[in-house]
């Protein structure tokens, strides 16, 4: 599971920001504060890994269209000569999906010694592996993927490093630098050396674990597709409702018609009822099961109508429930504005949905929202003891005064989590920053979120009362 993401000089982020990722991570902030930029960064990583392209990052693809490589650069660093002309990133991943102890030992042996030696006209392969390698499969290992890619005109120059540490041992380390045309995100240059070839075989197993973290993510954009009177079932992409929820209904039909998927159907039905007010979903196939009519019963009026005749909010939330039902343990679900078109009570219930997704199904979620009600429900669940304080992180995106002293200070902030603001000298600048807030065990929120952020209505009411 991803636990931390740091980025600088990428779209909205001029200075480095760090977002702590927990099982339920809520991104809040004003419009254009950078919440979506973080999600787009993750989508860019996913489509890079899905692509066969030799680019380090695939900026335009199936999941996100970000323009050219240089368009990613923050405007302030683009318009004038700036020392920071690279996109820098650092991602921490905590995982227990490790290669077997034998493969780990093989990788260590291959990375430490030259296994291929020349003996006259013969090549000699000598591989030494410890007889009883340390069993580490069940332990969690923290990996850090970090790098910097230059926004230059002619060359894509940069560096890229992955290392995993199982204290006190360095478990894995892979480094690629200079010309990034031969190196991509989680893809390293292979030389003609036989030694490197053997090493890379073992390294691929480590890298596959990390790639899976990004490839298994699913994303739902802020605007999902509207329900239709009849849906074409066919063969939707496995375990994916699509970024706009376009494949949600075929999957839903599958849940209700396939007896092996009744638990998923029950999960969706439960939240469709609580959040959307729909009960008793039924599917009627026509034209040799290609077209399916979906009907549901309105909980309040008991009227049985087509799904398309329910409110727009229903079509916006159903894909989230379907994707949640399909998600496997540990796969990150990214949802932008799940509260879209939903009234405030239903927004509260969405908080319970994300909580249940984690507690019952082990699915972490990254939620970008403008809804205080989702947070309020999560606070209540923490106070009731149904969620742990460590299960939730609230990332508040805001614009603050940042200080830029030296490259070293910036680097310290980026790589070693030492705030460069500690030495507030020199000319400051205003830039996006992120505060990672906790929910305390008593349900209260850690200091850092101004009351006026969600309290604009309160201020408006006070001002209105004072008008004579």
């Amino acid at each position, binding site marked *: 599971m991803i636990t931390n993401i740091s980025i600088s000089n990428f779209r909205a982020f001029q200075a480095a920001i760090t977002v702590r990722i927990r099982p339920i991570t809520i991104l809040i902030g004003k419009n254009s504060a950078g919440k979506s930029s973080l999600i787009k960064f993750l989508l860019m990583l996913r489509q890079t890994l899905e692509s066969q392209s030799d680019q380090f990052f695939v900026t335009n693809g199936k999941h996100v269209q970000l323009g050219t490589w240089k368009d990613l650069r923050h405007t302030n660093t683009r318009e004038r000569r700036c020392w920071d002309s690279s996109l820098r990133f650092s991602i921490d991943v905590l995982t227990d999906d490790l290669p077997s102890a034998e493969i780990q030992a093989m990788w260590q042996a291959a990375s430490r010694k030259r296994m291929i030696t020349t003996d006259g006209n013969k090549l000699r392969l000598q591989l030494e592996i410890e007889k009883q390698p340390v069993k580490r499969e069940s332990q969690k290992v923290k990996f850090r993927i970090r790098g910097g890619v230059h926004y230059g005109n002619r060359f894509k120059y940069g560096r890229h490093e992955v290392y995993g540490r199982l204290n006190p041992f360095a478990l894995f380390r892979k480094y690629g630098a200079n010309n990034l045309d031969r190196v991509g995100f989680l893809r390293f240059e292979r030389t003609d050396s036989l030694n490197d070839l053997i090493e890379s075989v073992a390294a691929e197993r480590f890298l596959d674990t990390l790639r899976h973290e990004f490839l298994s993510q699913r994303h739902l954009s802020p605007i999902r597709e509207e329900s239709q009177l009849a849906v074409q079932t066919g063969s939707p992409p496995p375990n994916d409702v699509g970024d706009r929820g376009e494949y949600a209904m075929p999957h839903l039909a599958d849940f209700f018609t396939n007896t092996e998927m009744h638990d998923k159907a029950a999960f969706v039905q439960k939240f469709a009822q609580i959040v959307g007010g729909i009960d008793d979903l039924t599917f009627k196939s026509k034209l040799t099961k290609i077209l399916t009519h979906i009907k549901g019963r309105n909980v309040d009026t008991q009227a049985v109508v087509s799904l398309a005749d329910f409110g727009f909010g229903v079509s916006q939330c159903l894909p989230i429930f379907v994707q949640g039902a399909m998600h496997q343990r540990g796969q990150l679900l990214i949802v932008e504005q799940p509260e879209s078109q939903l009234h405030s009570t239903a927004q509260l219930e969405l908080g319970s949905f994300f909580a249940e997704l984690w507690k019952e199904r082990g699915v972490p979620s990254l939620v970008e929202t403008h809804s205080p009600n989702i947070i309020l429900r999560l606070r209540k669940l923490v106070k009731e003891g149904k969620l742990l304080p460590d299960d939730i992180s609230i990332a508040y995106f805001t614009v603050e005064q940042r200080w830029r002293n030296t490259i070293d200070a910036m680097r310290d902030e980026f790589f070693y989590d030492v705030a460069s603001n500690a030495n507030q000298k020199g000319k400051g600048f205003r830039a996006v920053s992120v505060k990672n807030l906790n929910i305390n065990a008593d349900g209260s929120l850690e200091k850092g979120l101004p009351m006026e952020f969600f309290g604009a209505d*309160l201020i408006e009411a*006070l001002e209105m009362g004072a008008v004579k």
Partner: protein
Amino acid sequence: MSHIAIDTCVFEHYLNLAPEWNEDHHIDRVLSALQRRGVALCVDSNNRIASEYDAKIKPIILSRDETGMERFVLSYWMLYCPRKTVAADEADYRMNRIRREIIEPEPVDRAFVYVACAENCKLITNDKEHILQRRTRLRRETREYRGEATDFISSRQADGLIAHPENLA
């Protein structure tokens, strides 16, 4: 529907500006009990009370972080709760009697006492200097211009009445 008048300082103390006033969270209990009863908040037609709410509470909101439930409680009282606007004549006999006791230039304090008398309801205030210490004299002065239920009580006294909320509002 029953009514209540609540001095701005009670909300300020609720927001823990002076922790000693609300360290036991009794104001939380009082506001919560009143909210459950759906009590209407009394304000004056001259907007003195609403203006003071704006002038004193807004800066607190702008300067504070959201941690507990304060925003939700304040939102209820300032935005959602029923309000009773009391027609206040600053030159009538009732106001003149109040002015005899609160002689200082404290028109908002006078307005709080005025609306409590006019609506025959309790005024919850922690203003010792201008209201609570003069409670007996204020009661005497306004005897002809208030009902039997009118009283000027502190938030702690209000907390004591929660067990019998019909005595509170």
